[in-house]
């Protein structure tokens, strides 16, 4: 660790070098491009000096390990001499003496460091005088990581990777002397331990001890693999990845973390092992048209009909759905889709059409799709799944600080004194962002976690407040009450940069900690304690997720968090900020690109005359001045006949929208539905035309992560069959509807988008490589973009941030005698949203193959339920049957279930009541009954 600003001058191999005090000899040598061989050391980790391969001569009696030895003034260091080389060679020989014949790393990727050293020192085979074979076992229990204890040299890298990079704390050592080896938890097989399969251990292991297993195609060193630098297709963290591609088989063989400011080479299980969905045999490869005898339209598969499924497993049975469709040519399918949409537009008016885009599509696709709906359909009825995740957060942010994006990047938690994580299951939903938070918490940042579930991140918290579901507003009001009462607020900041303080003060005066304690189920003292900790912090950062936003009072929840930050002046400085963690890889970008009914690209208001004129001019057609309908409103419109035709690009509302039984009726009653997707989704069963699209891996595009980092995803694989690029399909439909649209490439679309979106101004495909840029980026040639926003005022009409005081309101549907439990829905680490991708990813499916819900062990006991038994969950809207798992993290009286599973869809149960501002449904709260199935 660099401890001082003083510098040290020394000589390495006769060359002078000056380094900051505290620099190790290894790092000082690197500054001179002098490579010192290492086994146990990795520059990303705390040096431990156990392998001694890096020994150098510093003129003392014995050699010193360069990775741990600090540089000293006047030191003269020799990195290579006969003595040193002899020493290194002997070490290598000793390590090789019981090294197994075939190193898995050498066979898979030819980068076994120990064997590399052996080659460097000309060691062929093992010294015959040394004993052979340590007889340590293999451990094949993990579906994704192969463990060969016999190839382990006990360098400690995996332990530090697990503990210090990912902070999962799974790996230790067992035994001593010759019998010692690495162990998982209590020396369990890896697959039975608490390992979350992030693969960091295999990524840092220098030998064949820990290696990634092949997923679909073999990983063999003598099989040439091509590398493609891209990003991860899953969450909003946007980890940079290098894919190793088998061209012959047109498949990704393995994924490797790539260094970028967002992810620092880290990955989670989905990014590292969940890439094979693109190669699944169920991919759509030809356009499909519904057969005449399958009208009137209705669900096709037993799951979507709501019947007992005929075959086990979690995927759609194509035998049930395919007979309803016939293959068609692109010409026929596109003509049909365009003519039907055009006919509906011309007969019933533009506002009877609507489009759902997707936050999994690129900025270019999102931009073009909303252009199609606005300029060609002639309506603002365009929305996407962000409505279902952070719409309320964005509504609150736009209202109070004038911008919906994060004010700081997640990794800046390292500069925060205090971090609040609330309503976010960060370790499962944003695993790599969570590593930064966990790391900061271990190095001095006080971590406060507020959640109704004791999530993984809560276990790293210094203060964990397990509040009653939906009681957030009361808690935050009470915290602000304490901060104002005890004068822990920043008067200067409030006076200079905010408005509405008196109103806030007046409202929160009623929320004493005692009042809040009764609502939240947390003691008044604890509430006051965390308020003081937050109020006294020099720099505090706030992260939140769906636990805040997916409520009927989601906007209110977010308003409170914003008020907390404004009250304490925690915006615009290092270690401060507001960070709603974005779910999908392109939630931020899809919103930026205008997949929102009220705003054009870059949040330019459709109701603003000026903005409308700008876009009318750019697109050359008159535009609808009225804001359009949101996701749930569009589904409602389909049900009552006011929406007649829909085009969906990569969206699966059947599983993702609340109250499935209503969605089913709505989709069936649409006059025309065109679905563009990579698989035949639940939603596509109601389609008239299905267009086979390209997956993330088969296209180029930009994706904007949770930090506002715009990154380029590159073509990795060839598209299957006749599948076409999404933007090309959109152009074809637009052209056939009488609005000629054509582009040469994705970058040409990006150019048009950035010309209309001031926040993206200056960015292009060249300057975005290799690790992207944060928007805004006034000087893309020299800077990484603006990390901290709003250090000096806000983009609101008054230039000030606005306090919006709000009262606590309970959830819309409270538990009662008939439905006594609270149902909370969310995600799990291994799966992604409606499961379309992850349930077709072999490794992820192997880890979590079936639908489950979670309940507190005491509730299970009280009801006489064994973990693993089938239960039925019933709400006023529907019933599902699935297995129950015992989870102490779930509070008594609560049920948690992921919404990934078509065979037990959580959204059959959820309540489609909306937040009045963000129009987001209350996914996180409804009353449910639990019975033994």
């Amino acid at each position, binding site marked *: 660790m660099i401890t001082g600003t003083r510098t040290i001058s020394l000589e390495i191999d006769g060359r002078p070098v000056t380094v900051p005090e505290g620099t190790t000899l290894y790092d000082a040598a690197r500054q001179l491009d002098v490579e010192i061989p290492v086994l146990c050391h990795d520059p990303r980790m705390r040096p431990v000096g156990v392998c001694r391969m890096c020994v150098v001569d510093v003129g003392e009696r014995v050699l010193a390990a360069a990775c741990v030895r600090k540089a000293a003034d006047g030191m003269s260091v020799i990195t290579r001499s006969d003595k040193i080389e002899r020493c290194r060679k002997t070490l290598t020989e000793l390590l090789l003496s019981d090294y197994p014949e075939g190193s898995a790393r050498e066979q898979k990727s030819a980068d076994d460091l120990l064997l590399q050293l052996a080659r460097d020192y000309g060691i062929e085979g093992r010294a015959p005088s040394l004993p052979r074979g340590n007889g340590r076992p293999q451990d094949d229990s993990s579906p994704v990581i192969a463990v060969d204890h016999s190839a382990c040299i006990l360098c400690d890298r995996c332990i530090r990777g697990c*503990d210090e990079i990912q902070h999962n*704390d*799974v*790996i*230790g*050592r*067992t*035994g*001593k002397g010759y019998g010692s080896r690495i*162990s*998982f*938890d*209590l*020396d369990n097989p890896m697959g039975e331990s608490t390992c979350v399969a992030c693969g960091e251990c295999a990524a840092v292991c220098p030998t064949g001890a820990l290696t990634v297993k092949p997923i679909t195609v073999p990983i063999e060193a003598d099989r040439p693999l091509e590398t493609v630098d891209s990003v991860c297709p899953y969450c909003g963290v946007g980890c940079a990845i290098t894919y190793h591609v088998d061209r012959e088989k047109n498949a990704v063989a393995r994924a490797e973390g790539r260094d970028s400011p967002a992810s620092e080479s880290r990955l989670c299980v989905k990014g590292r092992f969940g890439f094979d969905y693109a190669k699944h045999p169920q991919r759509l490869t030809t356009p499909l048209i519904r057969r005449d005898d399958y009208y009137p339209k209705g669900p096709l598969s037993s799951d979507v009909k709501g019947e007992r499924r005929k075959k086990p497993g979690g995927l759609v049975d194509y035998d049930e759905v395919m007979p309803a469709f016939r293959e068609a040519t692109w010409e026929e399918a596109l003509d049909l889709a365009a003519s039907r949409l055009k006919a509906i537009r011309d007969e019933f008016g533009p506002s009877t059409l609507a489009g759902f885009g997707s936050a999994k599509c690129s900025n270019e696709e999102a931009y073009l799709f909303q252009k199609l709906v606005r300029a060609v359909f002639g309506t603002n009825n365009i929305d996407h799944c962000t409505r279902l995740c952070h719409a309320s957060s964005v509504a609150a942010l736009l209202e109070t600080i004038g911008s919906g994006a994060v004010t700081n990047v997640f990794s800046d938690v390292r500069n925060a004194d205090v971090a609040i994580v609330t309503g976010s299951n960060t370790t499962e939903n944003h695993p790599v962002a969570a590593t930064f938070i966990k790391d900061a918490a271990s190095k001095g940042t006080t971590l406060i976690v507020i959640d109704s579930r004791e999530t993984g991140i809560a276990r790293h918290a210094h203060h964990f407040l397990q509040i009653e579901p939906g009681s957030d507003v009361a808690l935050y009001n009470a915290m602000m009450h304490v901060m104002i009462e005890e004068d822990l607020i920043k008067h200067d900041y409030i006076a200079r940069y905010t408005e509405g303080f008196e109103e806030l003060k007046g409202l929160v005066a009623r929320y004493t900690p005692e009042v809040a304690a009764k609502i939240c189920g947390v003691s008044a003292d604890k509430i006051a304690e965390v308020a003081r900790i937050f109020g006294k912090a020099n720099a505090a950062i706030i992260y939140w997720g769906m636990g805040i936003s997916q409520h009927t009072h989601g906007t209110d929840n977010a308003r409170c968090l914003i008020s907390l930050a404004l009250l304490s002046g925690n915006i615009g400085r290092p270690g401060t900020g507001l960070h709603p963690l974005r779910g999908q890889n392109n939630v931020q970008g899809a919103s930026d690109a205008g997949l929102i009914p009220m705003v054009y690209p870059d949040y330019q208001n459709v109701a603003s005359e000026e903005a409308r004129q700008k876009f009318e001019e750019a697109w050359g057609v008159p535009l609808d001045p009225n804001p359009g309908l949101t996701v749930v409103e569009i589904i409602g419109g389909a049900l009552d006949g006011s929406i007649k035709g829909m085009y969906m690009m990569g969206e699966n509302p059947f599983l993702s929208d609340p109250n499935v039984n209503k969605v089913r009726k709505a989709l069936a009653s649409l006059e025309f539905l065109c679905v563009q997707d990579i698989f035949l989704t639940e939603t596509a069963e109601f389609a008239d035309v299905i267009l086979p699209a390209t997956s993330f891996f088969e296209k180029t595009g930009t994706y904007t992560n949770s930090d506002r980092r715009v990154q380029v995803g590159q073509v990795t694989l060839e598209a299957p069959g006749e599948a076409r690029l999404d933007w090309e399909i959109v152009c074809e439909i637009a052209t056939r509807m009488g609005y000629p649209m054509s582009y040469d490439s994705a970058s040409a679309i990006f150019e048009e988008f950035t010309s209309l979106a001031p926040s993206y101004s200056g960015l292009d495909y060249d300057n975005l490589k290799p690790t992207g840029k944060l928007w805004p980026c006034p000087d893309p040639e020299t800077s990484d973009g603006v990390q901290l926003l709003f250090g000096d005022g806000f983009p609101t009409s008054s230039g000030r941030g606005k306090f919006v005081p709000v009262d606590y309101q309970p959830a819309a549907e409270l538990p009662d005698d008939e439905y006594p439990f609270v149902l909370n829905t969310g995600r799990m680490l291994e799966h992604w949203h409606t499961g379309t991708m992850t349930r077709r990813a072999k490794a992820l499916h192997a880890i979590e193959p079936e639908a489950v819900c979670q309940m507190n062990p005491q509730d299970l006991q009280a009801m006489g339920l064994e973990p693993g038994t089938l239960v039925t969950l019933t709400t006023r809207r529907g019933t599902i049957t699935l297995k129950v798992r015992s989870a102490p993290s779930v509070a008594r009286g609560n049920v948690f279930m992921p919404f990934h599973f078509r065979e037990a869809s959580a959204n059959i149960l959820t309540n489609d009541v909306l937040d009045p501002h963000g129009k987001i449904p209350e996914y996180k709260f409804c009353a449910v009954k639990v019975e033994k199935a």
Partner: protein
Amino acid sequence: MSDGLHPAVVSAQPSQRDEKNPDAPLFEGEYQDRLEKILSRYPFKRAALLPVLNMAQQVRGWISPDTIKRVAEILELSPAYVRSVASFYTMFQLRPAGKYLIQVCTGIGCDLCGAEDVVEGLLKATGTRIGETSADGKYTVVEVECLAGCGFPTMVQINDRMYENVKAEDVEGLLKELD
């Protein structure tokens, strides 16, 4: 019986008692007080790991997976770390032992003076294999590295009593003495 076959030392804070209670509640009552006393001696919780493990073994007779999880929770460490430390010291039993835990030093000194014969004799007399507990639940024989009595080989420790200069022919008498 040869000279010196007698309990040479008995530990002041025994870590292995004759009476073992694997289900005993941990860190409650007097043990809660002792835990707090131990914690008060150290600047941070991690430093208290060895004495806390020692106490846990005293209470339960061995360091069970449950014990490891509980200790990890109390000291805010990962279970993997606690197990790593526990597995390093032969004094910590990671498997349940019989009423008499018989530890035979097979370090270099004792080994040269016939430790292996002592081990063999003990295994034969108790009808067990290394680390196993005899069918009657009475004996568990294990090999250990050093019992800090290299001048008196072979060293044997039975629960908390040390025996010096043990020879193979002493085994029978030794076991008899226990009952």
